[in-house]
């Protein structure tokens, strides 16, 4: 576990975002649990809670924030955003195909692009941490 409070918050915030989004996708695809709108609220609460927590830590620990965003972590973060871009592009194409062929409601496809856009970069970042390429 990272000793740096910013890195620790980033790791746990990323894990929380990914786990919540995956849970929402699995539950929704199985038609179990609350509606998609409630899941959207849950995902947003987790993501905004992480953002607020991270902001407070950045203000309270500016030196730790500099170390947490050093060049290696910045590169890992940039790679996560690039991966997220391509993931969303491919998911968009897949959803477009499903919508055009009548296998998916366009409104549902549009709705689920949001969680993918939000959860893929943190998922990639968590993998980078697990591979020892970031903190």
């Amino acid at each position: 576990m990272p000793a740096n409070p910013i890195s620790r918050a980033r790791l746990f915030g990323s894990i929380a975002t990914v786990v919540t989004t995956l849970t929402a996708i699995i539950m929704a695809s199985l038609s179990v649990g609350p509606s998609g709108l409630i899941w959207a609220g849950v995902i947003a609460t987790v993501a905004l809670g992480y953002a607020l927590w991270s902001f407070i830590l950045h203000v309270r620990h500016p030196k730790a924030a500099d170390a947490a965003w050093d060049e290696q972590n910045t590169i890992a973060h940039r790679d996560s955003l690039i991966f997220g871009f391509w993931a969303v592009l491919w998911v968009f194409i897949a959803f477009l195909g499903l919508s055009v062929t009548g296998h998916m409601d366009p409104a549902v496809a549009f709705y689920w692009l949001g969680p993918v856009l939000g959860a893929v970069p943190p998922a990639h970042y968590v993998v980078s941490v697990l591979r020892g390429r970031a903190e």
Partner: protein
Amino acid sequence: MTTKLIVHLRAHRTQAKLTQAELADLVGVSRKTINTIENGVFTPSTTLALTLADQLGCSVHDLFALPQ
């Protein structure tokens, strides 16, 4: 070009009696970054290489070398 660097950072750090965390604190990076540089996983920027050399009282050529 993807030439793997030969890294002598660990030797110079231990010679200076510093832990990875202490050196990381001195140069303003995370401990993981020092760890990955020492293991040859991450190649630092010129700025960070110069800062590391400065903190350890040696030259960048003492810390990093190209394979012969």
